[in-house]
């Protein structure tokens, strides 16, 4: 952050970026791709089942693709993020396209592990690039969140606007000492919602005349959630940063005693204003030669 970007009497307390392992969810997608690709390669080329899989040139591709898509569906359902499935679908489609265009279908047992490793390496690099694009600045007046690989985003949050702080630390975070802190603003920024929907259908009647009914219900739960650009994602050392943010927020919040003081001062100012108006009125009436009203 440039010195010109700082406000008057503002100074930087901490500059942070996410821990290298804080995007493990994304990295594990690449990791699975490597493990599954190598495993399929081993099954096709070296294992005792290689005769089963080498019967048709399509077998290895189908086994690999089905495994990939199945894990994609399960991961998507668990994380409520269909992008995982489409990502794996894209990887599979890419592999099939390459094999067709280059005529590598015959050598699919060799192509699949190499392709998986290559795509995973690219994936790891993209995740690292994404991680490095995050910058968090904790200053004396506000928190500045910056990020974006192509489109640059920036969020500024003043401490007096923070109503809640949500903090979480996964197992990797506990082991390596990093964690995520979500400051929730008065406007509700930093809150997301979990939706669940259940539906049921019933068919009544015979083959000729039938009636199909569908009914269902939904449920929504507010939960602290923000994009990694708008939260202190995977910051290290977690406990220290959490304490610092909490102290900063506390320092910018008016305590009940201070609130009483402000109210009292306001009362005093009101009384003084009334006295001033009264005196002014008396002076004006004296100048006009009228007797002041008692």
């Amino acid at each position: 952050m440039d010195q010109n970007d700082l406000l008057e009497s503002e100074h930087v307390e901490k500059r942070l970026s996410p821990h290298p392992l804080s995007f493990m969810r994304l990295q594990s997608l690449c990791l699975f791709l490597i493990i599954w690709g190598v495993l399929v390669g081993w099954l096709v080329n070296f294992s005792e089942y290689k005769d089963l899989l080498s019967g048709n040139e399509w077998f290895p591709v189908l086994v690999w693709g089905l495994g990939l898509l199945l894990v994609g569906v399960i991961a998507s359902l668990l994380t409520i993020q269909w992008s995982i499935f489409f990502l794996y679908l894209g990887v599979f489609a890419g592999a099939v396209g390459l094999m067709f265009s280059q005529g590598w279908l015959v050598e699919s047992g060799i192509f699949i592990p190499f392709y998986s490793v290559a795509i995973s390496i690219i994936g790891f690099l993209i995740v690292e690039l994404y991680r490095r694009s995050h910058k968090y600045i904790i200053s004396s007046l506000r928190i500045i969140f910056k990020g974006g690989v192509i489109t640059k985003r920036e969020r500024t949050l003043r401490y007096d606007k923070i109503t809640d702080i949500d903090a979480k630390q996964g197992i990797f975070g506990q082991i390596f000492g990093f964690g995520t802190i979500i400051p929730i603003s008065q406007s509700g920024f930093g809150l997301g919602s979990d939706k669940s929907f259940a539906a049921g259908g019933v068919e009544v009647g015979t083959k000729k005349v039938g009636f199909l009914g569908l009914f269902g219900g939904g449920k929504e739960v507010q939960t602290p959630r923000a994009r990694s650009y708008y939260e202190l994602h995977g910051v290290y050392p977690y406990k220290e940063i959490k304490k610092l943010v909490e102290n900063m927020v506390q320092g910018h919040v008016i305590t009940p005693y201070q609130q009483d003081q402000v109210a009292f001062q306001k009362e005093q100012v009101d009384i003084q204003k009334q006295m001033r108006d009264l005196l002014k009125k008396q002076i004006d009436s004296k100048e006009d030669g009228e007797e002041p009203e008692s």
Partner: protein
Amino acid sequence: MTVSPVDVVIFAPLAPLFGVLLFWFIQLLFIESQKYLLSKIWNRHKPLCRFTNFLGVLYQTICHALGYTVTKSGISNFYVSVDYGKVAPKKEKKGIFEWMSNSFLFIGPFFIPALLLLICFLLIKGSGVEIAQSIDYTFAEGLINFGTNLYAFSENLFLFLVSIDLLHPPHIGFLILLIFLGMGIRPSYIGEEKQRKVNMLYDLQNIKAHIFHKPLYILMLFLLAYVFSYISVLLKTNWYTSLLSIFGWLSIVAIVSLIIAHMIILLIKTTDEIPGHWRLLPFLTIPISYALMRFILPFLTQKEYIASIALFVMLISTIIVVFLLLKYTTNKLKTTTKMKESRIEDGPKRSIRK
């Protein structure tokens, strides 16, 4: 040979029990030694130590949860973190059920994770282990049979380990599980600020308190063991010794995993003394030497020896690299030069005048 009835009725059932106790105690000693080594690398490798602690807490919590499941108490709350684990039952059961679930908590971590690994080993190996047959059912025979069973299993396990193929995914998976078991068989501490140190004495005190809390149950357990032994004698089978031999096998699996964990921690501890990026060299030597051997050996030797030779070369080359680095980059392993050379270097001032 005449067989004493007193021996068969009173002493013989104790033989495999003593064997199990002995191997479990050896396991405890290895765990203690591993914790000592971990404490030596704590300052420089906190994440690794926290990870091992997490594994220990995880095993312990799963065993406790298993105890509640077996006693049909149900699980209302299950919580695991790096330094603390908690399981709460749905129904608080007293008496034998409480005692059983506590047995799973205190004794389970020594055997249950190892049981999982034993199943994996038998699945990978694809064949069983030979069991010794009983004839006289005496104390001595019980002890010999227990030892024979353990020897047969150990032979199988060691033969598998020395010929483990690190390019074979199930073998790698087994090795990783073995390392994970050895690294975290017991947690080093419980509580965020290391409130409770978990050492051998802590475990033994817990088990002692558990036994003396309900001595009647232990008596019942002994009686049960004796009854089972008598049934085996009457039916002329070796069920009793075989069952207790499985506990011995579990101890052996745990001890082997602890030895491997010791080797890894020792490597980390030793390489910490090597300055700069040189310390990475031993860790790079491991995969490079193995891959190189796997590439070269098919041209030089028979197929069945390739994995073993490659493993041997990998271990030896790593040890040599560590020793060379210690000798040339640190003051360790420096030997004194000959006295004559020292005199020449020091000059006439340091020489002894008569």
